[in-house]
């Protein structure tokens, strides 16, 4: 599901891991991309070229049976951490708001940065 309408830049790429469903983020640098469970590690695409790379990575990884439901999400970078602008995607990067003991917010200290938003 490569995004047909690209959201406003900057963006990150997120998806669910095919095997276990966990939310994953495209991370890495100019040398290559990989999936990270940590939203704080997400590579921020601030220009069209990086967003294109993220899109291409999404398409390839959907085809490789690594992830499902991969799409770009527009973010605001706050204190160096990309925070999705939309509350739905923020929920996805933290975990249920009614169970702070579950999801990324419980597992990854960095994800707690997202709770501020």
């Amino acid at each position, binding site marked *: 599901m490569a995004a047909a309408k690209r959201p406003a830049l900057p963006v990150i790429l997120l998806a669910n891991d095919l*095997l276990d*469903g966990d939310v994953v983020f495209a991370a890495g640098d100019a040398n290559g991309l990989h999936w990270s469970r940590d939203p704080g590690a997400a590579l921020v695409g601030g220009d069209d070229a990086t967003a294109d790379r993220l899109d291409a990575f999404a398409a390839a990884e959907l085809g490789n049976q690594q992830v499902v439901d991969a799409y770009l999400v527009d973010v605001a970078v706050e204190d160096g951490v990309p925070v999705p*602008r939309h*509350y*739905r995607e923020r*929920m996805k990067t933290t975990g*249920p708001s*009614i169970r702070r003991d*579950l999801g990324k917010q419980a597992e990854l200290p960095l994800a707690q940065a997202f709770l501020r938003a």
Partner: protein
Amino acid sequence: MYRYDEFDERFVRERVAQFRDQVGRRLSGSLTEDEFKPLRLKNGVYLQLHAYMLRIAVPYGTLSSKQMRQLALIGERYDRGYGHFTTRTNLQFNWPKLRDIPDILDLLADVEMHAIQTSGNCIRNVTADHFAGVAQDEVEDPRPTAELIRQWSSLHPEFDYLPRKFKIAVTGAEHDRAVIKAHDIGLRILRHPDTHEIGYEVIVGGGLGRTPMIGKVVREFLPKADLLAYLEAIMRVYNLEGRRDNKYKARVKILVHEIGTEEFSRRVEEEFARLDGPSVNADPAEVARIAAYFAPPAYETLPATSGAFEAARAGNPDFARWVETNLTPHRQPGYAALTISLKPIGAPPGDATSEQMRVVADLADEFSLSEIRVTHAQNLVLPHVKLSDLFAVWQRLGEAELATANAGLITDIIACPGLDYCALATARSIPIAQALAQRFADPARQKEIGVLNIKISGCINACGHHHVGHIGILGLEKRGIESYQITLGGDATENAAIGEILGPGLAAEDVPDAIERIVSVYLAQRQAGESFIDNVRRIGLAPFKAAFQDTNREVSHAVA
């Protein structure tokens, strides 16, 4: 309870093996996601926001203690130690891993359970009155009918690829506790006024979602023996004429609405006449076989009252209050059906931990002939408890935070998972339920307000039944924030009605005040003994709208 025969057993095991193979093929890449998705949905596997979700069928809401223990085990071993009981009387696990799901399905098959017919465009898990076989106002237990429909629909090749999902509910009682008028087909078992023969009233075309409709009676009396042929006729008319071009118009409610009830009935009757009834209808021996599983259990002969029970009640106000709200009279003297509220103040409605499931299973074994029910209001029921045991059961429930005395009251709120879990949600619903329960927590106040159903959905799909809530709350998105639309006057019973919108949407933090104002109008205007919904019917929406608009003016951040 119903027990699988060899055929059921083989069918369920085969499906598990098939799904195991399908998951394997998905992982190896021989199935794409587009190919795999309909297959996983056929086995109740969804993808939510944070993880996969597995929806397990609880046919007609009846569970054995053994099944409940297995659900507890699955929750612990493969999930995060809890599950969510839904308005469709199913159980959802929110965190299973795809790789584990075939093993989970095997564990379910070990206790005669599965996740078939919980998703997709098929005839879904049939629901029924949760007081089936117990209620004093019952003509006949609806579960044999529900089980017959389950068997007939499970493998029916004609109905495996319907235009859209199809939901059937059955009640055998006068008072509708199964929301049959909000289902694609609602069946009410009744006695013919003249012949006293038992048959069905057949209601078609109810449904919630983005186009809510109350079902219409298409047949006032259908002889019992003709059930399957008549259902088949309905399904054929729908299958042939239901719209496949637009999924928002594909439910049978749209067809009934577009061609009219009379024309719809005419076509069904025509098809019914054409069908070879005897070859479609169930063999009476099979009907009797199924019905035998639901024969009343071996009750003891008891006096209608219990001294120990009355004494406990007189001596303990908390127990007395719980008895007042959570007990339902039983048709068998000396017994009661009790509702276990899954709505402790401030907790997510319908959630139960594995430990709580085990407590309920143990209590069912000790005190309720090993039987448990799941209600569409997201509570549980122990259907056969002796009055003399009630105090002990209440104490044990209390230790597990399962003795909240609020069944049917303002804090017994239905809420769908909403944006905390659901990928389709436009807003959260559980936190709204929590805030409202906290606002109205005071037991004396709840008692004063009396029966009042609040139902909350996190999007227009209406899984939380908001349209038929006395007060309905629908979570939407307005300009990038969550906004809540309030409806009033809905009813989920035999007097089914769709609520009307009171005014512009509100921000989450303003919802409790708005509900407070609505309740105040009722308290100020009610006549002696008048319930909330009766009051709304009598005085109309205007006074509530006026009060609501006051809230709206006062709050600075109302999202118009």
